């Protein structure tokens, strides 16, 4: 019931949500001389660095992909791009209510707009990055073909998981400011405990067993499968994450809906 009201009012405020996303995107580069170029420059640099430094200079070989040119860059970028989306969204959702304190205190609007704005603008940044990555794949002749459609369910799953977790953390962060600090630290560890710059196979048996408890392992692995192996990912392996996502969404909704009224008193 409350949810129905929430989504209806969200629809009424679509002008505000969409306007804010655009303003944020424009605002980031408005004062710069090259404008939107910088939106592309960052990700482009990242792909170049990972390709040159890791793939060409260090030349690690991926088992089974010895003959694929740029195999390691493809692997690396697939993981990094997916991780970036997760980390950016989570990091910003964490602070979304604190940063918008001024607005929350002065205007009455459905607060759920704020996380939605953050999610959408993180998604736009991700789309730019993905676009460049796909262009890169097309140029080196490694276009994934129809398997790219697998990205859609992966993306939906990842967005829902991050949204649930992020809204929960963002709400908690208003009441316990330590949450934001902890999240930053945890994200660092999480990145290095996920096979992104290394492969799962490179790990010893024991470490691999522990790694199974990392909920993002299967998701990042699926992204890598889609782009490197150009194969459909193993959707069954994503089931635990899907269950966890439901739990996170429930947790996020429970915390947010229960505390939204108190938010403004703490800002």
């Amino acid at each position: 019931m409350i949810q129905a009201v929430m989504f209806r009012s969200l629809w009424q405020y679509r002008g505000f949500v969409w306007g804010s996303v655009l303003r944020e995107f424009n605002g980031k580069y408005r004062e710069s001389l090259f404008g939107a170029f910088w939106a592309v420059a960052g990700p482009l640099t990242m792909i170049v660095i990972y390709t040159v430094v890791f793939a060409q200079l260090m030349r690690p070989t991926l088992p089974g992909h010895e003959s694929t040119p740029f195999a390691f860059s493809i692997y690396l970028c697939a993981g990094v791009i997916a991780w970036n989306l997760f980390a950016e969204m989570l990091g910003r959702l964490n602070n979304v209510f604190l940063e918008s304190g001024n607005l929350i205190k002065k205007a009455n609007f459905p607060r759920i707009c704020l996380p939605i704005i953050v999610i959408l603008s993180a998604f736009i940044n991700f789309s730019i990055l993905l676009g460049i990555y796909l262009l890169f794949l097309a140029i080196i002749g490694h276009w994934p073909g129809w398997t790219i459609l697998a990205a859609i369910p992966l993306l939906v799953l990842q967005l829902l998981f991050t949204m649930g977790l992020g809204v929960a953390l963002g709400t908690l962060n208003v009441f316990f400011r330590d949450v934001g600090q902890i999240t930053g630290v945890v994200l660092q560890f999480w990145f290095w405990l996920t096979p992104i710059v290394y492969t799962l196979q490179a790990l010893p048996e024991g470490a691999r067993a522990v790694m199974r408890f990392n909920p993002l392992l299967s998701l990042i692995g699926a992204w890598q499968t889609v782009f490197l192996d150009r194969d459909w990912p193993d959707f069954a392996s994503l089931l635990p994450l899907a269950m966890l996502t439901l739990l996170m969404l429930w947790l996020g909704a429970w915390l947010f809906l229960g505390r939204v009224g108190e938010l403004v008193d703490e800002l």
Partner: protein
Amino acid sequence: MGYLRVRNVGKAYKRYPGKWARLTEWVTGRERHEKHWVLRDISFEVAPGEAVGIVGINGAGKSTLLKIITGTAQPTTGSVEIGGRVAALLELGMGFHPDFTGRQNVYMGAQINGLFTGQISELMPEIEDFAEIGDYIDQPLRTYSSGMQMRLAFSVATAIRPDILIVDEALSVGDAYFQHKSFDRIRRFGEQGTTLLIVSHDKNAIQSICNRAILLKAGVIAKEGEPEEVMDYYNALLAAHQSQIVQQTISVEQKVKTDSGTYEAQVTKVKIFDAKGQIIEVVPVGAWVTVQITVIINRDIDGLVLGFGIKDRLGQMVFGTNTFHTKQRIEEAKRGEIYLFGVSFYANLGVGSFSIHCSLVRNESHVEKNYHWIDCAKVFEVVNVDKPLFVGCAWNDMQFKIKRVSDARAIMMED
């Protein structure tokens, strides 16, 4: 449309004894906080088209009340029922973003109020026009002065006439020119049926716009009623850090008379005399009158200043000054002495009912030491006996000069 019902609204902020107390409360579910009440049991109704002013000293709970009414904050107890589209100007700005341009902020502000891009673009020229901030509209908001921000915020919030307009002190930031302009707009909205709720320290603003005023004191409604009566009471309260009695009695003329002070010196009689020395109650426009004020000294004091002024029907001061400014301060007065003050002036007032305000203080204002303060010490009528028909609250002898020009070109040459 445009009604407002506030029922038993109370607001308490949670106060935790220590940093970890909130966590233990969340985990164990046992209450560890104390409730700090900033508003208690506030109930009032505002009918469509009514204009209500809210006054009170800093920290009385005015802003919190407005936040609850606009839905920004939630009441701890009670409820608010609101009918119609609300526009609110809470404090400065409307949650403006400092890095966005004025124009972008206009879009954001209006979108938050539920407007769509197309509608805002249509309203944009009018908003720019009203705010009169020129080229700044395309500059980032951080380069704005506070007055400019307020101009923009006001222009956006009032671009479309709302059913209810809520204004929180914001207007005091503007310069005199913009204050005039914004009050004009507020008045016009009021005439067109917008319900107004205004927080202000500006006595004139409250008295000239509102039909009713509510005085908040320490989170409760201390007084509610006619703006003039409430403002007089509020004014008397301002000096309340001295031990003094504030009382209101209905005077013979049916005006509420506010009487307060420490009574070391006291006004006992106020009489109006005409030029021939006769006591009068009705004053002809432009007549030379003398107001005689009798003051009795109850205790030895080291300074006495008489303040005197004439207020119009709405309680706005038409003119007034005190003997400090006229350099006639009495340096010392002994117990039992009686002073007669005579104030003479031409009653250059408009037709209607006026009241005499007088106060006995030690220095130039009543905040330091207030012996006796009386609003509506005397009410008198001004009638037009020998002047041409005129309007307004003041009389001025206006001379018109009219020349008939037969040759239109001749006058154009003159320019």
